[in-house]
Structures are given as C-alpha cells and as structure tokens.
C-alpha cells in the first residue's frame, strides 16, 4: 500500500508541465493507485509560473501538497525550482532542469534572476538529493527539443521511491502520442531515465 507520495512539477507556461502531470496521473491510475492533483496556472496565459501537483496514495485527500510534504520536485526551469523550495524536506528529491527562461521584468531591471550556483547551493542545503539535467540538450538528442518535459518525466521515473511503474508511464506516453512522435518521446523518456540514474 502506498500511503502518500507527492510530486510537484514546476515550470513556465508553455513548457509542457500539465502534460507531464497528466501522463503521470494516468499511469498511476492504471497501476491502481489513488491519485489527487491540481494545477496552479494563474491566468491562462503564456509566460507565467506554472505548478502542477500529483499526489499518490491512500492517505491523500486534498488536491494541494502541504508545505514541507513534497517527495519529489521536478523543475523544468532553474528559477522555478528555487521558487518552490518551501514544499521540500531533507528526504525529498529534486530533479532540476538547468534551462533558464528570463522574463522581461529582469531585462528592464524590475526583478532578479538567480545564478545556477545560488540555486544549487540552496537546494542542496534543503534536500539530500538534487539531480541536475540539461533537458533541452537531451531532448535534442532524442530528436526534438519539444520533448524536454518527457526527458524530465523519464528522470523522475528513475527515482526509486516513485510508486508508479516505469512500464506504465511508458504506456501512457505511447497512448498519448501517435506514430513517429511516440518513438521520439519514448526515446526522450529513456534518455532522461538514464541521465538521472547516472547523475
């Protein structure tokens, strides 16, 4: 029985965060798990911060992960990884895509953007395991830069505590995409999986 496993997926609008949680959630349901989730989109406009939460297990009721109760944080973007650290604890795993999406407010000097070193240092101080990936590069290797989100999903699947079967997640990817796109995405998934194992 799975009691509670909380996955937080963070990124910027347009990075495919919602699709990741859909694929993960579908797979979890197929594995017979109880699933609760929610997304925080703000106004449904591109460029804003996006957080999607997927919660697995029999002792989960609410749609939102309480602060400090995140088991895995998948950050599609560097600063968004840092933004969500209040959900983490020592035992949580962070999978960090080092890609930076710098908004105009930084260009016109109205806000800041952290350096990679700052982000990694703070994350390391909070969680025992931080895995860094260049998902964009891996996605290119798989055949399309559009698959960065699937690379990250693959990396998440390599975390031993994740209660969803790798095979089932791959099935839900297979079902979602058709033809050649399915192949490219499955490759992206595998490469992400391997990259996380090696990291």
């Amino acid at each position, binding site marked *: 029985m799975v009691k509670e496993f909380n996955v937080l997926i963070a990124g*910027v609008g347009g990075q495919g965060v919602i699709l990741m*949680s*859909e694929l993960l*959630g*579908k797979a*979890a*349901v197929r594995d017979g*798990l*109880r*699933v*609760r*989730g*929610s*997304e*925080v*989109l*703000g*106004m*449904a*406009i*591109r*460029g*804003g*911060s996006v957080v999607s939460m*997927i919660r697995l297990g029999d*002792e*989960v*009721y*609410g*749609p*939102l992960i*309480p*602060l*400090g109760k995140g088991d895995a944080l998948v950050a599609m973007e560097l*600063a968004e990884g*840092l*933004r969500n*650290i*209040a959900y983490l604890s020592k035992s949580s795993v962070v999978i960090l895509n080092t890609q930076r999406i*710098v*908004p*105009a*407010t*930084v*260009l*016109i000097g*109205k*806000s*800041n*953007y*952290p350096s990679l070193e*700052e982000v990694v240092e*703070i994350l390391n101080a*909070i969680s025992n395991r931080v895995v860094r990936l260049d998902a964009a590069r891996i996605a290119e290797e798989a055949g399309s830069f559009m698959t960065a989100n699937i690379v990250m999903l693959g990396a998440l699947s390599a975390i031993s505590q994740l209660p969803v079967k790798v095979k089932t997640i791959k*099935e839900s990817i297979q*079902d979602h995409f058709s033809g050649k796109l399915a192949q490219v995405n499955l490759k992206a998934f595998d490469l992400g999986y391997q990259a996380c194992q090696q990291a």
Partner: protein
Amino acid sequence: MKELAISSDAPGEKLFLLGNEAIARGAIEAGVQVAAAYPGTPSSEIMETLASVAKDLDIYVEWSTNEKVAFEIALAASICGVRAMAAMKHVGVNVAHDPLMIASYIGAKGGLVLVSADDPGAWSSQNEQDNRYIAEQSYMPVLEPSSVQEAKDMMADAFELSEKFKQIFMFRTVTRVSHGRSDVVLGEISRERRKGSFRKDPSWLVYTPAEARKNKPLMIKRFARIKEAVNTLPYNQLSVKDGAKLGIISCGISYSYTLEAIKWLELDDKVSVLKIGTPNPLPEELVKKLLTSVKEVLVIEELEPFVETHVKAVAGEANIPVKIHGKDLIPAVGELSTRKVIEAVVRLTKAKPPVDFKDLDKISEDIAPLLPWRPPILCPGCPHRASHYAIKVAARRVARDYGKGVEPVYPGDIGCYDMGVNPPLEAVDTTICMGGSFGIANGLAHIIKAPIVAHMGDSTFFHAGIPPLINAVYNKANITMVVLDNSTTAMTGFQPHPGTGYTAMGQETVQLRAEDIARACGVKFVEVIDPFELSKAIKTIEAAIRFDGPSVVVSRRPCATEELREKKKKGEKVIPCYIDQDKCNLKCAVCVRLLGCPAIVRKEGKTVIDSFTCTGCRLCAQICPHRAIKQE
C-alpha cells in the same frame, strides 16, 4: 488495452479526470439533453468536454452570447421537461441573476442545474465571490462537492434531485475542484432522450404581480421539503467521535483539507466532523447532533461565513450552549489549505503542528529577492500589443489639443488585453466587468475633458458591449470605442463566439461583424483597421477620437496563438524578424522600452530577437527609429 473515453459507458471503470471533465461526465450519466454556457475560468472545460461528445450522445450544446442567455436556454429546456444545465464562472451568475430570480419561482420540470464555478483566491477573476448567497436569496438548493469524484457523483444525481423536488439546483464548484485531478469511478450513462414539449400555462410562466405572489409560497414550500430531505442525503455526513470536545463542520473542498489536517495532527479519532455537501439548506438535524455532542465547534469553509452564520442560527434557535468558531480563525480571503486548517485547529486543541510553517515561510521570504517576477504577459505577436500602442500614440496626439498636461483615459475591459496595464504599455485605466469599458467611458464623457478611448475584445463586445454602445449614441457621449477583434475568446481558452462563424458543436453559422452592428446602432464614424499596419491604424484612431460624437474602430487581427496553431497545421513557416546589429543603436532600446514583447531579449550586451518566439508580426520593425529590424 482500449482507452476509455469520457463518453464510454463503462460503469465501475476508472478514468483520470480533470474536475470539470468529471462534472461533464456526471451530466452525461444523468442524460442531460441541453447544455449552454458562456466561457469563464474555472468553468470552461465543462462545456468544452460536453461539446466534444455532443453529437455522439445526442446532446444539444451551445456557447451562448452571455450567461443570461445561456441560463435562459437551459430554463426553457427544463420548462419543456428536458434535463438541462447552464455553466458559468461566479461573476457569470451576476449576469444571469435576473432570470435566475424568477426561475426559482418557476421551479424545474426537466432537471435543471446551474453550475457556478467560484474562484477563491481570484486566480483568474476580478474578484472573490461566494455564490451560495445568490442561491440562498433565490431559494435555490446548493450542492457543493468535496472532491473530483464527488463532483461527478453529485452532478449525476443533481438532475434527479431537481426533478424530485421540482426546483432548480445550484452546483457550486471552486477552482480546486474544477481544476483538480483525480481517479474517478464511472457510473452508468442514461440513454433516455425525452421529447420536450411546451405547455401553455400562464399561471406558472407569466410573471405578473399576481403570479409572483401566488408562486412565491409554492417555492418556499418546495424549499422546506428539501430542507427535510438534506439530512439524509449521502453528501452530508456526520462522524461523532466518543468523548470528542471539538467538532468541525466543513463544507465542500474544505472537507479534504480537514481530513488531511486532523490525520497529520493525529487527531482523527479525537475530533467529530460534519461534512457538508448541501450548504443551502443545511442539514439542521445533523448540525444539532454535532452541536450537542461537543464543547466547541469550528466551521471551516472558503470565502464568506455562510455555513457559520447558519450554524450559529441553528444553535441560537435550539438553545445549544456551544462556542462556535469560524472566520475568527479561518481566513475569508483566498483559498484554504491543509496548513490553514492545521493552524486553526492548533489554536483550539493545543496540538503540536507537525512542521513549523513559519520556518517554511521564512525560507520562501529569504529567496524571494532572488526570483524573477513573471506577470502574465501578452504573447509575442499578440495584436493587442499593437492596438494598445496605436491607441496611446493617437490619443496623446489629440490630448495635446485639449491643453497642457491633459492625459487621455483608457477604460479597459476583461480579456487578454488586460495585460496592457503592465509596463511598458500601461494602456489600461479601468477593468471592472465585462462590457464595463464602454459603460465607464459613457459616464466619463459627461464629466471630464480629455480624449476617452475605451477598448474591449470581440467576445466581450457580443457579450455586453452593445447596450453601452447604443447608450453612447442615444445620450451623445463623445467617446471612441475600439473593438479588439482577434476572432476568438482567447483568455478563457479560445472558444468561438458570434463573430467567428462557427458554433460550439463545430457547425458553420453566420459571422457577425462589430462594424455592421455599430453602424446599425447609429454610430456615424466606423472604421476597420489592421493593428499591424501601424501608421494607418494610428491615423484612423486619431480621426475617430477627433470625430465629434461616438466613434467605433474595429481593430481586426487573429489571435497570434491561434494563428500559429493554424500555420503549424497547414505546414506554413513563420518568418521571424531579426535585428541588424550594424544599424541597432543599443542605447535607444525603443523596442524593449515601448513594446514589452517577450521575443525581444538582451544577449551578451546586445538587443536581439529570439527566433523561436518571434512570430514575425513586424510591429517592432515599424517603430525602430534606426530601421534596424528586418525580416528575412
């Protein structure tokens, strides 16, 4: 494995659904035959889901011009004996409020359900609004689910209940239910399709004062029956724990936070809990049972103290000496969470919080200065950016003639163009409600001496823009009204509307034009512009502002996101712009400072255009004083 779909008749099987999909599924299971809506976050996916299966399941689905019409469509179907629903966001119910107040007198023949999607936290709304009060005022019972599964189940039952009690029901969902996701166990789909018929019955359907006075007592009687019945509905559940001193009453989604909080605090066998699924009317018998079994009660609900007030009334009436807490410990602003519930419970029980939330807040506060601010922005290539810019340039030119220091005023509306309020555009002075821009402009015209240029989107124009436009003509308001026609309802997810030429079910239909309507309404200056032909657009808007009397400019350009999607489908290429670095005068940065386009970025000390994000709209190329921006 064959994938299940939202329309699969597969009772007992599980699907992973969005809350709004679950609500649609519930309606499908109930055999809904007519569904009408106007889009609005967080409600839109309900009708989108129904529209996607409408033909297969023989359901009539429409996007109506506004919520009032949508509600009337559903009401008419119910009067004819057919199961019907209307769906809208919380403020949409304000627009439908007029017929709603009479619909309650009429009651329901075919099951009639009004879905009100409230938005605690105002994630995508202009306010927080608790529509349980609207329901109470009209004797409308409210069903409020605590989870996505319950949303499906309740919705499936709602039509049956509505028919049984001959009353319209409100189904109140909130953002966290509508946009939550969960595994959902499906039920059976009703295939019953009734043949509706209209029976003439003025004493039931014609509301003269005499009919109003006759029908009101009937409505009150129906409500009294419902008040009895809710005590045994499965959505209200009382769990009394032996020796419990504290009782919690939680309504809707708050129940999920409550369960989680008391489990985390290890109080689950020390606290009695009453789950409320029908806040209006309350299951008073269950409430009394709880009140008499404990010393103290905490009412947990989002937004206003609706349940709390009624629980206090029940306690007062029955003389039950129990201390009742609510909004003294639970915030009335924003969404609730497990944490907020824990903090309230801790104050009443002296239990130890499982983690130090203040510590976690401190961590967030400490890193805040490092983080980029990502306000919602207009997309690259968005035609609204060009329209805002053109309006400002034109209006400022005219303002100079009004005298020194006179600033034009830009009443704005509800849509993607809201984002024009942010720097650098700063082209929106008011945002109140749909259609409000033209109305406010009408009022300003009789008070201030300055150019008044109001703008609203095309979907908003058909929704609520036409009466204030007629008002400007009738009452001689000297204003300029710009319709930002991007051929879609972009902000809520690209739904069609009367200007797009097709319906919710994908049927082709007449395409209405704002300029034709404006002319028919008696506006004497009506012009259509393409905002991407900038200098022409500015000239036309300037002429419109200078025109003596109300004027209308229709700024027509398809939504950039929709256009990109179309191009992708057709295999057409996007040709981005680029900056000729030899010509660019770095210091000027006019493009960065005036437009705020996310495709224009600074890289290694240079201003460059990101070729992935640029859509090639050429707006920046037209304002660059050095003619440094080019397109291949």
